[in-house]
């Protein structure tokens, strides 16, 4: 069964001054696929996400979502179409309780359109969503102020903020970084569940072992260029990738 292509990125580039942060990167995504983007520090992964989601203006190239050109749309319009993202540096609404953080996306035009008007008891919906990502309702975690939550919960809060929008594509910017092994172990099933629900996921990640358990395909970036793409095991064996990660061998 050939799957419908949901996202096409064709030849996008971005320079900051003389530095080519993203250089002519293209890829395609099928619906329900889960793809990893990896690469050394400063290889342009986050910039690539910013370009796709419209937070940074593209120098050149095009992005299509479900055959619609979204190249020039502002970030909120792109999110409104169903492409949501998490941020690498999480900044929840610190002065609000965790569940109130979700009222903002639940109030968004996209959700209101989906449910046909005002959503019923949003507090309950928000708490259900938080429970789904592992906020223990019985321990009153959803009611805690976001500023008092530990890192692991913040990452999940960020993810649930995306889920609240009922997205079609989720782009995760390093959701595993800074988490303990136990915390990652509890997040992996969550990501698998997203895939089961037919949500397309792009994961930018440094934790390769956990990533390779999840993804069907990885894309490797270095100095803003895509240097390899394919099944994780094969990609990691190619010469360019080994050089990018381990350095060039001295002659």
């Amino acid at each position, binding site marked *: 069964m050939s799957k419908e292509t949901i996202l096409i990125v064709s030849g996008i580039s971005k320079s900051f001054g003389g530095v080519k942060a993203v250089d002519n990167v293209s890829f395609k995504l099928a619906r329900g696929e889960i793809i990893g983007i990896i690469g050394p520090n400063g290889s342009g992964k986050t910039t690539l996400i910013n370009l796709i989601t419209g937070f940074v203006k593209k120098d050149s190239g095009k992005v299509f979502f479900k055959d619609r050109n979204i190249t020039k749309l502002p*970030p*909120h319009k792109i*999110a409104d179409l169903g492409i949501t993202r998490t941020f690498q540096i999480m900044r929840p609404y610190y002065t609000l309780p965790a569940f109130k953080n979700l009222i*903002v996306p639940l109030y*968004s035009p996209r959700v209101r359109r989906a449910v046909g008007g005002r959503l019923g008891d949003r507090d309950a919906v928000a708490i259900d969503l938080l429970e789904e990502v592992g906020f223990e309702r019985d321990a009153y975690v959803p009611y805690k102020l976001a500023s008092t939550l530990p890192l692991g919960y913040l990452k999940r809060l960020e993810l649930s903020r995306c889920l609240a929008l009922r997205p079609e594509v989720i782009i995760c910017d390093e959701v595993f970084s800074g988490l303990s092994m136990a915390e990652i172990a509890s997040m992996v099933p969550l990501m698998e569940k997203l895939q089961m629900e037919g949500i397309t996921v792009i994961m930018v990640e440094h934790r390769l072992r956990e990533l390779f358990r999840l993804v069907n395909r990885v894309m490797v970036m270095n100095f803003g260029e895509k240097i390899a793409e394919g099944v994780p095991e094969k990609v990691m064996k190619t010469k360019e990738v080994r050089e990018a990660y381990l350095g060039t061998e001295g002659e």
Partner: protein
Amino acid sequence: MELKSRRKERLDRGINVRTTGIYAVSSWREIAYLVLPRLILIVGLLILPLVLPSMYWQRVICITCIFALLALAFDFLAAYVGIICLGGALFVGVGGYIAGVSNALLGLPPALTIPIATLGGALICTLLLLPCLPLRGIYFAIISLMYPLVLPRIIEALDLFGGTEGIAALTTFPNIWVDQYLIIVVVLIALFALRRLANEDMGLVLHGIKDNDQAVRASGMSITWYKAQAVFIGALIGCFAGAYLSHLYGWVGISLFGLDFSILPIAAFVLGGPGTLVGPVLGAFILTPLSEVLRAFGPLRIVFYALILVGFIVFKPEGLMNYFQRKYHQFEHWIEV
């Protein structure tokens, strides 16, 4: 000698049976606990004109309420949306001139000019400020401070609306009671409406913009649109104050763009307690009469005024209302650690 360290322990006094959005009130004591502070404010403001000794102080109350409205607008924008708006004078000036022009040149009564000036003025102010809304940081403050400096010069240079003379002989309110109660009722409505708004969905989105505007954009909402709405609400309040002021004096002139209208509300905001909405109103009700009392000191007036402000910023930066609220809602006692 053994060093004993002590710290203050705080315990919530509040009602412990509280579910989301509903107070489960079980006794008169608790009802009083909730209602009394609000009642004191409402009743206090309403009987204030009756107990004042002279016409002079009744006039002072009108001016005080104008500053209270501006302080409310500033507090709403600064503490609930994260926009520092130094454009109080812009709102007052635009609102005042629209009311003045429609009254003097078109002959409309105040019952029409005030609503026109409030809505039209707010629309104009929002459009003027729109270009700098997508920007973060200090730019909005600078632009909003600039307009009240530029507009009076334009009026002067082009000799518009009576130029430096202004427009005189506007219709005034029928008597001093209308003067006072009109503005007092508006202050109360604005206060409770803003409080309500802050707890609604819209208020949460605005709060989100203050905490993290990028996350709001990533949630599919245009921050410019929401900020514009917030500025419109702030401008509504400010423009009403301006329109009211022009009918109170029966005169409009370029002094409506005076910096007092931008700066004094900020002082009231600092004194009264940022983010409490009631606080800035309280602050205005302390500062404006105080500045009248200090008139007796002549030129030293500003010095005393500044000293009081500095004292508050240094010793009570949280502001009066935050302090009172804490004392009201919590027991405090010293415990040894």
